[in-house]
């Protein structure tokens, strides 16, 4: 027995020794200025042509810069474009590029842009986000293989002049050109290495950082690109991006100083975090909306009265204030506030009625539509198993059943992947969903209700007046006039209510107060080139 007691003691001593050993180590081992960014999920790719996630954009946009880019406030500012001109009909834009180099010293030319846009739209590239580029002339036929890539409306005139032709005037083009699908790629590298061009040993970039290492599910590591045109104004030398799939764990790592920032945390943690680390918490309206989608091919939901009744019975204020609790704004329109060139005047007709009044109205509408004790309204509401959605479901179920006891609602949780598959094939009754704008423009929301957007138009709602207005607006050059027409279209959609707006998203970040240059913004894009650390800025500019 003596032996065993000794052995146990040894084991404990060993563990204690390991723990002590660990404390002696510091994670700063050079003069390099390093930013540790929590970055939501593991990137599926770093090829701008194959990416589709905001977390991928966070990394890719630190490495590449398109014709336009985002400043610290998320506003569109010129990137590779030095100057530009739009033709009178708004269909042709000519860009003059700044002089810039890839990280291997080769010049960045208009030919790289032409090559990149042709590449992403070539069917063989299998770019699943290419459809965002369809405003470019012939983009769709090229993308589906009906036309050769050379027929795409993008042409390099010389090394520094690029012409982009459009299907319709799109005054929001500069905003679209900040999107990663429009980034240039180094033609000489892609042609040499093929799909392996994004590997750390091959990749060349034109932005502030270049890729050093990518360890799956562990981190992506980038370092300063000395040849970046604005390199002298970049403060951070190296960035590590960590996938932080578990919010609670990510919060702990920020509070412990292991991560400098994370760009999402759980809404329920907000009160706790406000109390523990008040100067870390950043909450700001986001360019996105939570909505419920009706399957209007079903007989009961083909009737706008039924759709409106169910829409008005939902107590959005309760959901925002008591369930989500992170500053979400109750939504009475489909387009979030703060969208550029948009009046934002459209509103659901009954938005200011108190909820009891709306419930009474809803009952009247349903009775008018032929429902009642002898003909109950029965449907199933399906929702995604992720995030706050499961906590919203029982609340809205209750809201609907309060209209009358002959409104009978089943709620059913569905795995996210299956949910989208069901919605795409219109195999659902009433389902939840969310949309985050790709770029700051109203059309990027309104297209979700266009007839030609099926299957992305999960509702299958089709309205000629709406389609005509949206199409007309997209042919209008004058931004104000266009905005007015889009708002008119939005009003039609709200009156018909194929989608029920619930709340506008907020973006939630924890940012160590040491980090400077972070500005909360509606697009929730925060490029590392604008950031620094306060202790570095307070001192001298050396090092």
């Amino acid at each position: 027995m003596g032996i065993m007691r000794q052995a146990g003691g040894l084991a404990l001593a060993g563990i204690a020794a390991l723990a002590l050993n660990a404390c002696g180590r510091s994670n700063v081992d050079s003069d390099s200025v390093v930013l540790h960014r929590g970055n939501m999920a593991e990137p599926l790719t770093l090829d701008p042509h194959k990416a589709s996630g905001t977390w991928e954009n966070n990394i890719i946009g630190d490495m590449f810069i398109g014709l336009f880019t985002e400043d610290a406030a998320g506003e569109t500012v010129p990137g590779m474009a030095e100057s530009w001109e739009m033709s009178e009909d708004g269909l042709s834009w000519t860009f003059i590029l700044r002089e810039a180099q890839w990280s291997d010293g080769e010049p960045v030319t208009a030919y790289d842009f032409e090559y990149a846009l042709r590449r992403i739209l070539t069917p063989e590239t299998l770019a699943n986000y290419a459809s965002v580029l369809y405003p470019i002339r012939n983009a769709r036929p090229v993308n589906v293989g009906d036309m050769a890539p050379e027929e795409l409306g993008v042409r390099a005139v010389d090394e520094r002049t690029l012409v982009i032709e459009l299907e319709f005037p799109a005054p929001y083009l500069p905003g679209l050109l900040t999107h990663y699908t429009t980034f240039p790629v180094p033609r000489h590298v892609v042609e040499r290495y093929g799909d392996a061009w994004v590997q750390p040993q091959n990749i060349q970039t034109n932005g502030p950082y270049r890729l050093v290492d990518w360890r799956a599910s562990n981190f992506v590591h980038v370092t300063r690109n000395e040849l970046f045109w604005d390199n002298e104004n970049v403060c951070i030398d190296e960035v590590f991006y960590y996938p932080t799939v578990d919010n609670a764990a990510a919060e702990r790592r920020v509070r412990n100083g292991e991560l400098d920032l994370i760009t999402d945390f759980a809404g329920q943690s907000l009160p706790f975090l406000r109390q523990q680390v008040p100067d870390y918490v950043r909450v700001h309206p986001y360019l996105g909306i939570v909505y419920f989608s009706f399957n209007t091919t079903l007989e009961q939901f083909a009737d706008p009265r039924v759709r409106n009744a169910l829409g008005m019975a939902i107590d959005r204020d309760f959901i925002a204030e008591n369930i989500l609790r992170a500053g979400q704004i109750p939504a009475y329109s489909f387009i979030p506030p703060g969208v550029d060139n948009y009046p934002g005047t459209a509103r659901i007709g009954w938005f200011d009625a108190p909820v009891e009044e709306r419930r009474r109205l809803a009952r009247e509408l349903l009775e008018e539509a032929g429902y009642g004790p002898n003909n109950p309204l029965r449907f199933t509401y399906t929702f995604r198993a992720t995030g706050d959605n499961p906590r919203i479901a029982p609340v809205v179920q209750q809201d609907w059943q309060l209209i009358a006891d002959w409104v009978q609602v089943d709620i059913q949780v569905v795995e996210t992947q299956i949910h989208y598959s069901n919605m795409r094939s219109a195999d659902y009754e009433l389902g939840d969903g969310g949309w985050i704008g790709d770029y700051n423009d109203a059309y990027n929301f309104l297209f979700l209700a266009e007839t030609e957007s099926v299957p992305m138009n999960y509702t299958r709602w089709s309205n000629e007046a709406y389609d005509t207005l949206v199409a007309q607006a997209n042919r209008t050059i004058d931004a104000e006039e266009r905005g007015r027409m889009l708002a008119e279209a939005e009003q039609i959609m709200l009156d018909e209510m194929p989608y029920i707006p619930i709340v506008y998203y907020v973006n939630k970040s924890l940012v160590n107060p040491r980090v400077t240059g972070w500005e909360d913004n509606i697009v929730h894009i925060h490029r590392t080139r604008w950031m620094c650390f306060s202790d570095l800025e307070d001192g001298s500019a050396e090092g």
Partner: protein
Amino acid sequence: MLSYLARRLLVAIPTILVIITVAFFMMRAAPGGPFDLERPMPEEIRQNVMAAYGMDQPIWKQYVDYMAGIARFDLGPSLKFRDKTVADIIAEGFPVSATIGALSISLAVFVGTIMGSIAALRQNSAADYTVVGISTIGIVIPPFVMGPILALLVGLHWGLLPTGGLDPRYGMTVERLILPVITLALPQIAIISRLMRASMIEVLRSNYVRTAKAKGLPAASVIVRHALRSAVLPLVSYLGPAAAALLTGSIVIEQVFQLPGIGRQFVQAALQRDYTVVMGVVILYASLIIILNLIADLLYAALNPKVKYD
């Protein structure tokens, strides 16, 4: 002995084939597919993508192609990670999971055996109750509770260790592994100490231990050379599948401590319908179970003179 080994390995091949086949068709039968995204692709593009991964073929053809790939040791590309193959993903994640799993199981065997033996030797004493109490706590507090508690206390509150992740420069350093290994080991320590206690008590009452004592052998020698040897037998049968489960990674540990292991990858892949990654990990898992069970059986024979393989 050798013929036994050969026979077992031969049986393993059809077993794995059956597992692959069942997993393949179950995966395809699950609703939804890898290309159902929040922003759906235009139908033409979707067709292109499906064709590029051979998913436009009839299911039997896909199965035949997949099996042909397996025969060439080719697990195929990931359907989600555009720049990676399944082999890449396993090669990156498995070492992390295997290291944590191996350390945990070693720690658990070491601590659990000692604790169980002490409890058995001093049955119904304070030491015994302490061990039983600790192991009950170990079983009833699951890792997804214990992990965050340890991270909060040791990491955040006392500031002794990082709360998660690997070291960006040095990878799996000691300080990064302590908490996950302990968290993963605790329930195993509990199970092993209880197994050990029960079988030790039984062995201590057996005739040959009494004989050994009667011969006048010193107590330590009786316990280590005679009692322990047969008392670990139930443990050996338990450890085969348990080790396989720990080596292939724990989603909970990898989530709570943000570790880039294969367990998290497996669950993610299943949820996102990344068929090929799921299949790859299933094959890995099945092979490990078969191998570790075989090792457990061989060890069993080596330790137990009553068992002979021929």
